[in-house]
């Protein structure tokens, strides 16, 4: 018996053949997803390092000690923090050493020493080192201590 042709009857099959209805993920889509996952993984590792490098590449650490061996006065620390080009000021756990991180492209170091002189503080510069190098040295030291 003749049946009238109904174009809707095989619509799903027709769409599969024409590629309108996708059957799962194609090779291209799968390849893109894998690439995105790999790039995301790589960027998780590399981006923070790159950001860290670019944000610290011009920083140096200057480590000072008072000739008297006493603790650093709070007002001196506060005054140094206000100097243009100073990134951070930290004391060691005994409050005897002052680690000042500053931008070497500015006059921060000269301004710092001037501030010490202005207050008639006898200050010894113990070390002046690249900030990242200093940080790596401290991290390696911590690892060595933690490792039995």
């Amino acid at each position: 018996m003749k049946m009238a042709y109904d174009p809707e009857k095989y619509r799903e099959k027709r769409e599969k053949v024409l590629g309108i209805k996708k059957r799962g993920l194609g090779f291209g889509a799968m390849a893109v997803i894998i690439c995105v996952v790999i790039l995301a993984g790589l960027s998780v590792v590399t981006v923070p390092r790159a950001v860290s490098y670019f944000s610290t590449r011009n920083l140096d650490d200057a480590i000072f000690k008072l000739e008297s061996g006493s603790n650093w006065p709070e007002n001196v620390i506060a005054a140094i923090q206000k100097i243009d080009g100073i990134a951070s000021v930290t004391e060691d756990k005994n409050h005897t050493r002052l680690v000042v991180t500053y931008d070497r492209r500015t006059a921060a170091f000269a301004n710092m020493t001037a501030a010490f002189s202005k207050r008639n503080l006898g200050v010894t510069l113990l070390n002046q080192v690249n900030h990242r190098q200093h940080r790596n040295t401290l991290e390696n030291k911590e690892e060595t201590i933690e490792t039995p």
Partner: protein
Amino acid sequence: MTQVNHLIEIRGLKKTYQSGDTTVDAIRQMDFFIDDEEFITIMGQSGSGKSTLLSIMGALNHPSQGQVLVDSLDLYALSTEQRADFRSEYIGFIFQSFQLIPYLTVLENVMLPMAVTGQKKKIKNQMALDVIDRVGLAAKAHRLPDQLSGGEQERVAIARAIVNKPPIILADEPTGNLDSQTAGEIMQLLQTLNRQGHTVIVVTHNPEVTQYATRTVRVQDGLCFV
């Protein structure tokens, strides 16, 4: 998309084979249509072009000229991949020589067309067992083809053809290798499949086969007479 009024439309079809300096016109000019859920026999003598016509309708053989539209899809305007998808979605093939893989069981042979469907093995297994049951071979699902009679092997070929639920079944001389009683049983099975909604197209040179069809297209010297 081309506007069509029938499930299959053959328009201005020509097919020429080149053999050295000789040109053979397998199909000189054919225009006809087949509606959904019809049972068509394409009848003609050997060399009349009927098998060429079947292979062209099955998206297996490029025509030299003309169009074959199935469900509004212009088969030979599709890409190679789309044509492969078309065969997988729309067509179940039954061959005269069964073309079963001798070292695979009935079940494994029937599951073959589902290899590219992306379905889970358990579902494929169940679908194959269902169609094996439909062709009456449930008890022999785990036998090898050479442990079956010719009629049973033809049933396996039919099961394999319908396992993906294709709307169209193309059969090339399906009873050519069978005795008349078994041939009758196979044609009745194809008739049942037609009543269940498949469009069945059978190529044959045997006039007895036409009694099962709703319509016969006669092919002679590369021309068709509907």
